[in-house]
């Protein structure tokens, strides 16, 4: 029995605990975690009453965990060790080839799906409505980890289309086998993916061919949602492109706020750079372009549609974009006679959406 080793062990154990405690005391509070895209618990959030409500335990633990020094490094360490011991899925994110991080979706749990289909069918009754689902990156990009379980998204898309009484625009075949059409570190499709979507949608809806577009690199440090979930905070960000408009913008109203560009440069300085497009999620966006063809589009959507908008502006003079998750007025007032109506949802978004009842 070596007394020195005993001493050293005891000292190391208490030093690690004490040192981290002291550093935690000294460090200033952080109010927001960029990597996780959420507000952190602060000391001020803990109330005296929590002691008597029995909530103190949870709150203090959350506070300590949220404000822990080197927090992101600890999370990275955890992710890193798991990858070393053979994990390819952490926190419902698959670590694919070529740096792709895919969300893991399992569409077996679809308790809202049939209801959602019903809501849409009720809504379209006597109307000519177009509907499109965008598969997830994991469903399209052929770079999943070798043994990853993935649900065949074509099957569920076909199922949904077979139940819907809409004109369905099938993107699955068009996106399949295309390169570089989704972000690697985010769940959205990128400007190239949405271009394919745009081409297909316009062909179906208007029977027109579409123009080419120019792109401009606006950020090389986009770290999206799957990056955040993965905890692999050592990864480099990726490129985000601006889609140069082929025609001018006459007016833009986001909720009640006017704006003179569909691009929001200030969003490039934040973590959530996908919001560069149309400032992220808003209840109601009204766009008028200068093409003077009198066409109007009502677009009911989730965030996958934001990156479609720069393209669609070439074909519609006015576009009204509604996000049912935030929109609480009567949607029927927005659909008048000479309006084209298009639904754009990500597959995952549509399957799990809980706001489509607002179509009633």
């Amino acid at each position: 029995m070596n007394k020195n080793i005993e001493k050293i062990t005891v000292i190391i154990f208490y030093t690690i605990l004490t040192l981290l405690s002291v550093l935690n005391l000294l460090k200033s509070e952080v109010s927001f975690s960029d990597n996780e895209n959420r507000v952190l618990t602060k000391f001020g959030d803990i109330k005296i009453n929590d002691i008597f409500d029995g909530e103190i335990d949870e709150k203090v633990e959350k506070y300590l965990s949220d404000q822990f020094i080197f927090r992101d490094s600890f999370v990275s360490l955890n992710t890193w060790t798991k990858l070393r011991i053979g994990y390819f899925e952490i926190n419902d994110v698959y670590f694919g080839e070529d740096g792709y991080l895919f969300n893991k979706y399992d569409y077996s749990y679809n308790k809202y799906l049939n209801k959602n289909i019903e809501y849409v069918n009720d809504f379209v009754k006597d109307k000519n409505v177009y509907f499109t689902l965008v598969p997830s990156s994991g469903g399209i990009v052929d770079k999943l980890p070798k043994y990853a379980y993935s649900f065949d998204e074509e099957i569920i898309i076909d199922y949904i289309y077979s139940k819907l009484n809409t004109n369905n625009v099938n993107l699955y075949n068009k996106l399949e086998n295309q390169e570089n059409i989704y972000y690697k570190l985010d769940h959205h499709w990128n400007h190239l993916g949405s271009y394919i979507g745009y081409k297909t949608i316009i062909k179906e809806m208007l029977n027109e061919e579409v123009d080419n577009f120019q792109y401009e690199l606006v950020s090389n440090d986009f770290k999206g949602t799957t990056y955040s979930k993965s905890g692999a905070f050592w990864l480099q960000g990726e490129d985000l492109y601006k889609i140069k408009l082929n025609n001018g913008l006459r007016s833009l109203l986001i909720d009640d706020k006017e704006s003179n560009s569909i691009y929001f440069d200030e969003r490039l300085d934040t973590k959530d750079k996908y919001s560069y497009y149309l400032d992220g999620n808003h209840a109601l966006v009204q766009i008028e372009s200068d093409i003077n063809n009198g066409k109007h589009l009502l677009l009911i959507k989730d965030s996958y549609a934001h990156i479609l908008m720069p393209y669609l502006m070439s074909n519609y003079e006015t576009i009204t974009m509604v996000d049912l998750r935030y929109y609480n007025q009567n949607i029927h007032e927005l659909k008048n006679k000479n309006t084209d109506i298009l639904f754009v949802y990500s597959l995952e978004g549509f399957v799990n959406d809980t706001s489509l009842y607002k179509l009633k």
Partner: protein
Amino acid sequence: MVFSSLTFLFLYFLIVMLIYKILPFKFRNLWLFIVSLFFYGWGEPKYILIMVFSIICNYFFGYKVKDEKGKKYLILSIIFNLSLLGFFKYTNFIVSIINSIGFNINVSTIQLPIGISFYTFQMMSYPIDVYRNEADTQRSIVNFGAYVTMFPQLIAGPIVRYKDIALQLENREESLTKMYDGIKRFMVGLSKKVLLANNIGYIWDSIIVTPIGEISMLNAWLGIIAFSLQIYFDFSGYSDMAIGLGKMFGFEFLENFNYPYISSSVTEFWRRWHISLSSWFKDYLYIPLGGSRISQFVTIRNLLIVWTLTGLWHGASFNFVLWGLYYGIVLIIEKVFLRKYLKENIISHIYTLFIVLIGWVLFAITDFDLMFKYLRAMFNFNNVIDKRAISNIMNYWFIILIGIIGSFPFIKEKTTKILEKYEWIYPFLVAGSLILCIANIISSSYNPFLYFRF
């Protein structure tokens, strides 16, 4: 508060230990008593009152059982302790049974005080031990309170019988070696809980929420194996932490686990699993009922009583009763004839693991319909293997392997031998595993302790 929380590691433990070591010995039990009550009340302060009330009553019983009317007070103490446990743990269950046969009683849900099953049993042992002359009456209510509430084993055991610790309350040795051993033991437990149990738990969690009709045979077995490893590392890890913390404060608790999954009979399994509970039931119920010495009929009756109660002790729900009875029946079968055929051979081991794994299905799934469907999935030869199962195995193979290896003693024996030669590795192991555990705890809010609901 659980040991595997930042609150415990970085606030509570450091402060408690620092002041404990500064205080002279005569105040140390008082300090332990106070901070243990704090530890207990941290989650639900109102239950401190019940705890203190129980302590005072049992302290009083400790004197009274020595009287000439001692037996009456002994019975009173048993009724008292069981009533409290019964009220808090089983009222809702009993009401739901009564209501299910047509009555309509309204009782607001009673929240289960943390660890009540553990500390009630612990407290009950005191008047009994004193009555049996196996321990002396504790004159100091502080010492008695410290015994009952002692935070290392308060909420999840081991269940310390009074006679095993009576002397240590008055006098115990604290030393550098004990601190060193305690830290090592604590880190073993923390790593078992945080690195193994929590991460292996994800497998079970993901499988049990899969639509039941889609679970393949392989995935069903993987799920229940994962649960078995999770509950073992969770619970034995918690016992390791308790024993380690005990050592740091100078106490020696008895072992609670002894590699249960290497047993060659179910009887042996229960001598290796949650030893403090089995021996409590043996000492305070099975033997007083006559044990196995009277007649085969009495033995069988006793086993059934003990095992129904063991099941109920784990939770107020029918699946736990079923689980207890299941073991009662298996143990009777072993006792009556099977035992003599169970030798140290592969078939006996497979038989034991099979019984235990099926047992965990009954234990883990409270809903009977789901339970039977899960059992059916385990033997569904129409859906033997699927992509979910392969994905799970390929993602988690390493941690499952570590879990399985860790369930057997030979690796520990080998590594201990090597480590004895290179003892300088220990400080690095302690530091490394502590950092990894912290990283794991921070990374996940997934830190529920499974034995909380008992």
